[in-house]
């Protein structure tokens, strides 16, 4: 199976499940007063391991799915998700993507930035979302939740890719240029 194709399918499918989870399971909200959004951590993974087209597709599809189950105006979540993905994608050569600390930091930043941009769009377009000092706590919970979810998502995707993709070609110690050719 083509690894890129598999990876992209897994990302979109996980986005679908992430939106469903956010709308169906509210244990974290009851406990901490804010629901964690898993789309920004997923966007971190897509931006580091996928193409720009995939980043745009995830922002578009994930944003539409999220808004369709929410009271958000349809399409308002697309731009924040894409901005987060684009910023990471543009500097991904400089990011130590295998380091847990890098994943935690990116997850934290992405999960903080996406809702902030979304709230700014809502406020500037004349909508009146619930907004106050409590929003700071909600953003903190979202950011920490996203930070924790990011390395977990990376591990899950790594495991799935290993399980369903091709195994990496083993390096052989045999070198053809050093072969002793026997005469006759």
């Amino acid at each position: 199976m083509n690894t890129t194709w598999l990876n992209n399918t897994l990302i979109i499918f996980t986005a679908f499940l992430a939106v469903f989870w956010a709308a169906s399971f509210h244990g974290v909200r009851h406990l901490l007063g804010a629901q964690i959004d898993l789309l920004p951590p997923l966007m971190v993974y897509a931006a580091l391991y996928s193409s720009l087209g995939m980043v745009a597709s995830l922002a578009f599809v994930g944003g539409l799915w999220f808004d369709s189950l929410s009271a958000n105006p349809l399409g308002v979540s697309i731009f924040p998700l894409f901005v987060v993905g684009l910023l990471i994608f543009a500097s991904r050569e400089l990011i130590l993507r295998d380091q847990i600390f890098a994943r935690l930091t990116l997850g934290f930043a992405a999960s903080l930035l996406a809702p902030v941009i979304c709230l700014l769009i809502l406020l500037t377009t004349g909508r009146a979302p619930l907004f106050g000092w409590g929003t700071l706590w909600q953003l903190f919970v979202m950011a920490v939740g996203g930070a924790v979810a990011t390395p977990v998502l990376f591990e899950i995707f790594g495991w799935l890719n290993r399980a369903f993709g091709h195994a990496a070609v083993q390096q052989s110690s045999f070198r053809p240029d050093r072969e002793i050719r026997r005469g006759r």
Partner: protein
Amino acid sequence: MLKRAHYIALGLVVVLTLIILNLPSKTTARLKLGIGSSFIGLFGLANTSRELAGKAGDALTPRSELLKEIETLRHDNQELRLQVNRAEELARENARLRQLVGWPQKSKGKFKLGSVVLREPANWWRTVQIDLGTRNGLTNDLPVLAPDGALVGRISSVSLTSSRVVLLGDPNCKVSARVANATGDMGVIGASGPLDSEFVEMSYLSKNADLKPGQSVWTSGVGGIFPKDILIGKIVDTRAGEYGLNTVARVKLAASLNALEEVWVMMEP
């Protein structure tokens, strides 16, 4: 840092977002319903697994506990029957007195029970979706009550099989309310803080309103959406409004919005 391709992609996403955001509201509503319906299968699956888990739990409950529960329910049932008989007697008396005074008769109201199938994924709105839609006769702006009769919110959009309920405390759910005191002070129930799901603010109350903690707050019937005399909650505390021109009261909701599993939709007041 950003290359030309990145700018082009960003431009495309911005244009696409602007187009979607500026679509006519009817088209957006239809699109939302269409996209949201892709989750129906998963919701069905989640509900079935919940039911199965519940059944498995029931099968594991010891017989002695079930018998004890039956006994309690029997006792509750007898008590409720007694209360229903008394309520019916009072209703008959009320109807007779209304007839004598010449007031119009009050209807008993028509309700439909719905289950909450999903909650708001975003933290800045307060809505839920229920499993009743246009095929059940639902329309926009119908009042929604908790199982114990306290006000929960109103229907904000309806599809064939489901509806969105905008809950009390959401900025889009404003209710004209009346305090049960001697002067019957009136105000407007509006949005609350992002973390206070059990409390709402009642504003535009008179500066000299005689408000005390524990006084109950009911719908006033003004505004045309919510009928009169539906319980909203109880006053917790009060403070002066902007420039001291009015009073704002904090109201603890009678309905527990976090624990909503089933709701009544008031089809007719």
